[in-house]
């Protein structure tokens, strides 16, 4: 078989693609692998690739902490924050997409620019506000912070999706007697449902993985799974195998969720690029 330049390119790109995917996936693979090792095997040098798997770490993790409690918090806070952010972002993006003013673009850029600021920059004021309002270690407090954290991204994404909806369809609705609320609810939202879904998915994933605010603002009551993981890097030293087991159970739900909604997510994230 002769290798044409086209075939050679394909081989090269495929190899590069697999290599990149491997590099990204390797830490997760190693973590899952480590979670089935004993603590001694976990820190062995050179690392052991073949060993007798054990479920010991998982039972220890289960004994030491109430996984369900943390997972429940993660779900409540992620879904709650996503719902709130969407609730605020839909009317905001509707206004920006269909009734833009002179400064709409600037406003959008400014909103995005707040994401470029390190979160730690506002830690002290937010911490003090939380302390004074009794929001520390509450689910609603964390939900609020996550809502504000994701709002710029949610607005941006919804804005992009709404822009794709032909203006005339909404105008036709207006001529048919639709008030703004009906216009959004009965026309705009059904028409951009795929976009809204992928925005919500991304928001849930971002909330789930968020560690900075959850570590600083929660201790036990409202602590999500990120705090659960952190609690295994305990003062008595690092127990890699147990930490890996804890991490594995913490990321498992969102991994499955993300895998199931992969298509939707990719479509949403590459939306502007391919059109």
């Amino acid at each position, binding site marked *: 078989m002769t290798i044409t330049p086209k075939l050679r390119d394909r081989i090269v790109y495929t190899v590069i693609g697999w290599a990149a995917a491997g590099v990204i996936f390797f830490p997760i693979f190693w973590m899952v692998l480590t979670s089935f090792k004993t603590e001694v095997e976990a820190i062995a040098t050179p690392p052991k690739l073949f060993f007798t798997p054990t479920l010991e770490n998982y039972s220890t993790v289960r004994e030491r902490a109430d996984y369900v409690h943390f997972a429940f918090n993660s779900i409540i806070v992620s879904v709650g924050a996503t719902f709130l952010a969407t609730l605020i972002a839909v009317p905001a993006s509707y206004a920006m997409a269909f009734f833009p003013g002179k400064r709409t673009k600037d406003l959008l850029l400014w909103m995005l620019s707040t994401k470029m600021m390190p979160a730690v920059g506002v830690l002290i004021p937010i911490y003090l506000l939380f302390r004074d309002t009794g929001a520390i270690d509450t689910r609603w407090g964390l939900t609020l912070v996550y809502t504000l954290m994701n709002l710029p991204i949610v607005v941006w994404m919804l804005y992009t999706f709404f822009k794709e909806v032909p203006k005339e*369809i909404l105008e*036709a609705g207006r*001529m*048919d*007697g639709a008030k703004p609320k009906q216009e959004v609810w009965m026309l705009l939202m*059904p*028409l951009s449902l795929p976009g809204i879904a992928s925005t919500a998915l991304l928001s849930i994933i971002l909330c789930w993985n968020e560690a900075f605010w959850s570590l600083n603002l929660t201790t036990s009551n409202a602590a999500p799974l990120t705090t659960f993981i952190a609690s295994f890097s305990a003062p008595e030293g690092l127990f890699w195998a147990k930490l890996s087991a804890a991490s594995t159970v913490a990321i498992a739900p969102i991994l499955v969720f993300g895998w199931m909604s992969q298509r939707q997510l990719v479509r949403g994230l590459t939306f502007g690029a391919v059109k």
Partner: protein
Amino acid sequence: MATVTLKGIEKNYGDVQVIKGVDLSIEDREFCVFVGPSGCGKSTLLRMIAGLEEITAGELLLDGARINDVPPSERGLAMVFQSYALYPHMSVADNMGFSLRLAGASKEERRAKVAEAARILHLDALLDRKPKELSGGQRQRVAIGRAIVRKPKVFLFDEPLSNLDAALRVQMRIELARLHDELAATMIYVTHDQVEAMTMADKIVVLQGGVVEQAGTPLELYHHPRNQFVAGFIGSPKMNFLPAKVTGIEEAGTIVQLASGSVVVIPVRPGNHRIGDEVTLGVRPEHLHLGGTGEISGEVMVVERLGGETFLYTQLDNGPMIIVQADGEIPTGVHERVKIKLDPATCHLFEKNGLAAERIHRHPLAHLRRLPTRKAG
């Protein structure tokens, strides 16, 4: 009853004025067509009536009541868009019944009214389909059906036929005219196609640069254009314009001399032109005849044979290229020399500022109107 009155309507986008003071009154059951070249402001004017664009200055009255600040959802008008703007996620029946649903009508009422509109538009078999499963002509029908169901005071059409192919456009044109008669409703229709305007309108409003150039019945615009722009815009092919000079003014009309030296007496009132003025003589291709003792002559450059008629693009010996409409049977070919006869009664005279000199005799059909025969129910 539904009359629409525009008083000094203006529209600015920032510093740019796109509608420069339009005064217009559209009567009950009238089919009014806004026509003009692209960018003349006709669609903007329609959208202002619909309430989709804000009115910068002036007053918009519906049945005598000011509606400048009434939101589109409460004006009681229906609009058909060029892109149809159907709701893609709803079936044909739901598309047509959407306004009723918003108004809180019962399911039975909705079904009955949608069925009635579907019957008028022959959409009965398509009610369960989604818009993407329909052809262009069917989508257009659904868009019209959506408007009919509302029983609006006024129908607004924004170039509704321009996305259809030529044959379908002619068919829909006839259906719309029939529908106007059947519904006996006031309709405002925007188009850039002067044939659509001529064939459907009771009143044509010719717009250019945000200004109404002339408003009147189709035949009034055809026979009595107010200025050279309207004369050139209405009629197909375009009116021919020949430079001329006023050599005398009599009771029978104004005597002008063409570049060829021939003299024509045009039956128009003296108006503002004086002896010695440079003027423009306008004459439509269909009013020119080939004849042995022609006032003007030239060489045929292009021959367009449509079967029933033939257009001769003729380069005059002294003057511009003109179009002559001749019989379909004439054997004249390219580069043949022809003599052309002018009938003074059909000639127009335009003064230097572009305004037409008023004709002495009004055309007997200039006021002919085509209002619906039935009474509004």
